[in-house]
């Protein structure tokens, strides 16, 4: 896929805000691409080529629906470690995800310095991220403040899990964003578990979105298995942000289809019934069924998308596997500004 393709904005029919068939298929493509990339990440780990995987499986519908509502060239994404679909949509091709996964020198997020899953890309306006959770909420608020005072028209979307909402930085960010009515969208991809701790031990409310009232912003909860429901809510949030009406807390309930990471075994703390229920919520299957029913996704069309993704994932893996590892001689670089280096 050429970078140009990722920038193509879909035609959206004006009357209902319902995406046209081409747009629906593009969404479906990204849903499937993210899943295929994610599965390949696990394969690389299981075959001993990658040290670690942290996965976005189950979160793809939330991310595709939300990021589709952005101006992907102009707006900012401040991601978290499950944002595989989101960063693909913002312009990072599969090869770059695999370069990150394998800690290669040309990993565009960190040059092999960070663990896999710590996405960032300056050219695509994807802010570099760390491992302490919720710190990025404040960065998103700061980016939005700068956008507002500089009059750039940018919107900033940041994503996190529901466990992150227990952190002080989450509260501090929403509070600041509310006070200044900033063009920022706080997306909580609520999969019900913070590693092993279930939501009922994380908070005393059923919906994270209930907290929005305390920050003077709307809070919305949608079902992440239904991409179009997410997209509709995200569009409203983007319109609010762009129109100067301020931030939105958008909670998207998603299933977590894998363990927290490759170092976790979720069977220790999840029941077989719970896991079966999660699989039934798989956004890839739910969206495919929806598109088939609408007649948008034909067997031929589906096969074509699958074949294209297979090629892209294989090619991306090949590129990443062939890429060089970082040279230890470069590991001392860029602690501070280097006047002669290009950024």
């Amino acid at each position: 896929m050429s970078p140009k393709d990722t920038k193509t904005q879909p035609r959206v029919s004006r009357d209902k805000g319902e995406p046209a068939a081409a747009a629906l298929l593009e969404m479906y493509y990204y849903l499937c691409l993210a899943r295929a990339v994610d599965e390949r990440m696990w394969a690389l780990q299981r075959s001993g080529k990658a040290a670690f995987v942290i996965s976005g499986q189950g979160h793809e519908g939330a991310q595709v629906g939300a990021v589709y509502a952005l101006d992907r060239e102009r707006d900012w994404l401040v991601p978290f470690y499950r944002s595989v679909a989101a960063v693909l949509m913002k312009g990072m091709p599969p090869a770059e995800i695999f370069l990150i996964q394998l800690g290669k020198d040309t990993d565009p997020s960190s040059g092999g310095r960070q663990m896999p899953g710590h996405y960032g890309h300056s050219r695509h306006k994807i802010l570099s991220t760390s491992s302490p959770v919720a710190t990025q909420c404040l960065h998103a608020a700061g980016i939005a403040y700068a956008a507002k005072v500089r009059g750039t028209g940018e919107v900033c979307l940041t994503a996190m899990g529901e466990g992150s909402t227990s952190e002080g930085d989450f509260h501090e960010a929403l509070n600041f964003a509310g006070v200044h009515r900033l063009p920022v969208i706080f997306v909580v991809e609520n999969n019900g578990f913070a590693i092993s701790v279930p939501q009922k031990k994380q908070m005393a409310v059923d919906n994270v979105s209930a907290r929005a009232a305390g920050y003077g912003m709307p809070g919305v909860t949608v079902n992440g298995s239904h991409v179009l429901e997410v997209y509709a809510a995200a569009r409203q949030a983007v319109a609010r942000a762009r129109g100067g009406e301020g931030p939105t807390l958008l909670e998207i309930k998603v299933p977590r289809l894998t363990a927290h990471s490759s170092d976790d075994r979720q069977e220790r703390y999840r029941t077989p019934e719970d896991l079966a229920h999660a699989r039934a919520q798989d956004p890839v299957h739910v969206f495919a069924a929806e598109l088939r029913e609408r007649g948008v996704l034909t067997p031929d069309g589906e096969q074509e998308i699958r074949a294209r993704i297979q090629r892209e994932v294989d090619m991306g893996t090949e590129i990443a596997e062939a890429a060089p590892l970082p040279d230890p001689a470069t590991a001392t670089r860029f602690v501070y500004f280097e006047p002669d280096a290009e950024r």
Partner: protein
Amino acid sequence: MADKRFLDAIHDALHEEMARDPATVILGEDVGRKGGVFGVTDGLYEAFGEARVIDTPLAESMIIGVAIGMSVNGLRPIAEIQFADFIHPAFDQILSEAARMRYRSRNGFQCPMVIRTPYGGGVHGALYHSQSIEAFYAHIPGLKVVVPSTPADAKGLLKSAVRDHDPVLYLEHKKMYRSVRGEVPDGDFTVPIGPAAVRRSGRDLSIFAYGLMLHESLGAAELLAREGIEAEVVDVRTLRPLDTKTILESVARTSRALIVHEDNRFGGFGAEIAATIAEEGFKSLDAPPTRLGGPEVPAVPFSAPIEEWFMISPEKIAAAARKLVAY
């Protein structure tokens, strides 16, 4: 040249940098209408407006975290933490985020910003308005740490910090705001981040200090001179990066090193200077590199006699110097 108070020099640097670069913003608690609890940002709200001089909610992690985002998206934030004692909620944002942004993105992102904060005791501020925090922060690669001791340096170093490409922690000893005066050059000038300065020459020992302790060390040097002991006094000025060259050259001249800071000694910044001298200047030494730091109690106590007991005075420095010279 004009005679200025320490506080006015900082204020002037802020005003001039805000006027020079429209991307600069100030954010912190009470920095707007009130002009800061010490008056350092007095008048800036009126001059530059509420979008650029931001009275923030009372949340230190927020102040630094938001500043990082602002910086990434084209602003040049100057954050104020009202007292250094309150900076610790922002430790994670400084350590894990601001100081690592460039390294972890291999130069993809940077977040130049200044974090100004008043530190230090001797003002009846007790445990939570007197701390010296430099040891925690000078430990962090990716961060720069400066501690000016003269009004001219306060202005010149702050301007350098605002124009720097990396995050700079700028520590202001609060007792010096209105008690220290000095000549400040006219017009736009900067003092580079990095070099230390020899403030007084002497042959018998070198005293290394920064901030208020530089002044107390100069006072000690006066006392010692009356007894025929000539102390060289070096103003460290920048803790990270540390000017080891000037430090080692001074020890080569005097053969004795006394490092003075208000912070407690154990694991304090003086250990870094002492270790550098021991490792790289061993052959010029006639006595062990010696540290004089605050007592090993958690922080500065309040009531006058116990605060005075804590604080390092010219007399205490002179006593340590005599011992070192007699070694």
